[in-house]
């Protein structure tokens, strides 16, 4: 890694001041499992590294049955993987955090870091989007709130300004009769970048038809892709085998994958179809009566 200046600000304001001062040349540093790799591979060479791990209050992990789950910027994927709260209410996110990487990386990598990295194949983004999560962002002008769905603008690009910090994720509490799933496709059982990822959140109403759902795809577009047409096919309908198959086909049609060393575009499209159907089936099975 090239030389850099290293800061460990003690407060959020100090961190914001550093970001402001080193606008464009400084990088925030939390888990480091993306940043340090990028630095070693010469993809990013920040002259200043601003470590936010000493800032108090950035590691909250609080669930409320009405307002949902609030995760601070320093919450690790390991915490999300193992928390009884996430396992019960945010199963898609918990699965994404589990499949995400090795345990050595999961202990360090933060969910917010995975979000901000905005890789098209990021694992936590699809479940967060499917769950309707928001990001709380602090900047020099104060705080703003933005849906995760609107956060990524391209591979590795977000709407976050150079002087802003994401401080929290807020995920709504799941309504009753909601099931969630995340399926990641890769050649091996673990240690994979998703070739395709599918996150589902599905809520049934009392008569068993689909009240609402979120269906979000990873690795088949420049950003996580919400399969709106597929969702529309299911909303208000009963989740029959035919309906699920139709939704899966629609999701496959909406996907815009590229081909690369991990898989061809055609194969990814086909996996969207297969895995969307499987994820829907799995999420439906998760619904407690």
């Amino acid at each position, binding site marked *: 890694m090239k030389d850099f200046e*290293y800061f460990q600000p003690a407060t959020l304001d100090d961190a914001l001041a550093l970001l402001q001062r080193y606008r464009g040349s400084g990088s925030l540093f939390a888990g480091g499992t993306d940043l340090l*790799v990028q630095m070693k591979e010469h993809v990013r060479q920040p002259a200043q590294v601003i470590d936010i791990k000493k800032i108090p209050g950035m590691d909250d992990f609080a669930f409320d049955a009405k307002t949902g789950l609030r995760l601070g910027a320093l919450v690790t994927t390991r915490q999300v993987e193992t928390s009884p709260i996430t396992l019960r209410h945010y199963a898609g996110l918990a699965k994404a955090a589990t499949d995400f990487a090795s345990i050595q*990386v999961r202990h360090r990598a933060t969910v917010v870091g995975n979000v901000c990295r905005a890789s098209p194949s990021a694992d936590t983004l699809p479940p967060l989007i499917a769950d309707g999560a928001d990001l709380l962002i602090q900047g020099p002008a104060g705080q703003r709130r933005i849906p995760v769905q609107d956060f990524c603008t391209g591979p590795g690009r977000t709407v976050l300004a150079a002087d802003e910090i994401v401080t929290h994720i807020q995920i709504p509490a799941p309504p009753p009769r909601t099931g969630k799933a995340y399926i990641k496709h890769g050649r091996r059982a*673990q240690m994979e970048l998703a070739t395709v990822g599918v996150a589902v959140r599905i809520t049934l109403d009392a008569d068993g038809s689909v009240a609402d759902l979120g269906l979000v795809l990873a690795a088949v577009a420049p950003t996580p892709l919400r399969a709106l047409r597929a969702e529309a096919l299911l909303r208000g309908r009963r989740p029959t085998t035919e309906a699920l198959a139709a939704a899966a086909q629609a999701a496959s049609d909406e996907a815009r994958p590229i081909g690369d060393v991990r898989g061809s575009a055609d194969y990814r499209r086909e996996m969207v179809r297969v895995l969307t159907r499987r994820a829907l089936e799995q999420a439906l099975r998760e619904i407690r009566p």
Partner: protein
Amino acid sequence: MSKRVVSFTVNGEAREIVVAPNRSLLDALRTEAGLTGTKKGCDVGECGSCTVILNGQPVNACLVLAAEADGADITTVEGLQAADGTPHPLQDCFMQCGAAQCGFCTPGILVAAKALLDRNPAPTTDEIRFAIAGNICRCTGYSKIIDAIAMASTAQEATR
């Protein structure tokens, strides 16, 4: 950039080193602290050879800055034996089962296994496989590694 003093405890011993900010914990442990047991297999967190326990958690030392380990409590492979040299049950079982061949991945796997047994003293085979999913071994095919970890957990449970 200016170097700084970093103090941490490694294997129960207080150490102080002087490093530049861009020095990884892995390089600092191996060079400045003279603990070469932890290995560099890929330097980008993909192989697990550099696994150490940092404040109770198994992590890849190549993805931790030495500077941020100030005040930390670290365990490396060198810290597994007892003070009088008695091997840790994991070390004993690895030797008995033939769970090491070339030995390069062994320190990382031992440390990851220790972290597993610390949090889950009686893991199933699947849990063992999952705990070392981030450690690459190219020699053994993993069978004997898994046997050894299972054997060590039984041995430790027996002495509880």
